[in-house]
């Protein structure tokens, strides 16, 4: 229990230090508001349009892929923890290793599929994607 109290204390400190620094800075720094300063900096150009630009769809793809794989690592970790001690306690390699090989195998099939289908391909040929949409609309 105490270790989590300590970690909580670290959390408190980790919040407190920036706050203290901010407070110190607030006392030190001047404030000279001016319109030119508060403009958004876009390499010196006058900002145009909204900043909430529509970004590349691939970000979503990657994010989805991550969600899947990251959670799988959650399931892999318990296995790695017990792997060696289970072996030492006499579990056969087949019972302890095969399920994880199957699990990873399934993951790999998924990954390769995503790979081949361009989920991790940053730039798609615009020509190809145009052809697809046209066929769909026809």
């Amino acid at each position, binding site marked *: 229990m105490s270790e989590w109290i300590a970690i909580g204390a670290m959390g408190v400190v980790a919040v407190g230090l920036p706050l203290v620094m901010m407070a110190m800075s607030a006392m030190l720094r001047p404030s000279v508001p001016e319109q030119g300063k508060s403009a958004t900096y876009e390499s010196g150009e006058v900002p145009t349009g909204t900043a909430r630009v529509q970004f590349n769809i691939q970000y979503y793809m990657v994010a989805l892929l991550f969600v899947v794989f990251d959670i*799988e690592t959650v399931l892999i970790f318990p296995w790695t923890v017990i792997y060696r001690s289970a072996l030492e306690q006499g579990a056969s390699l087949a019972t302890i290793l095969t399920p994880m090989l199957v699990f990873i195998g399934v993951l790999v099939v998924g990954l390769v599929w995503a790979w081949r289908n361009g989920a991790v391909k940053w730039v798609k040929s615009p020509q190809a994607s145009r052809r697809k949409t046209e066929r769909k609309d026809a």
Partner: protein
Amino acid sequence: MVPGQYYLVLSAAVFCIGIFGLLTRKNALLFLMSVELMLNAANINLVAFSYYWGNVTGQTFGLFTMALAAAEVAVGIGIILVLYRNFDGVDVTKATTMRW
């Protein structure tokens, strides 16, 4: 036994917050978050009572729940994305081509 009931109250509160969010929001993404909250309420119970009962069943199942919640989000985001494209927004009440 008393701590157990505290956990139940906590999880029930989280669950109810989720339900509340789900009922009052029209944004599909917020809907999704509310559902996650509800799933986490379940996780609270599972982990707390795993400790109480002294078996790891609950914790293990908690892991599964998390994994499934993630998978659900993955699918959900995909659907919300096509929703956005087809209906120009993520407002769930907008999509009414069919009679409700």
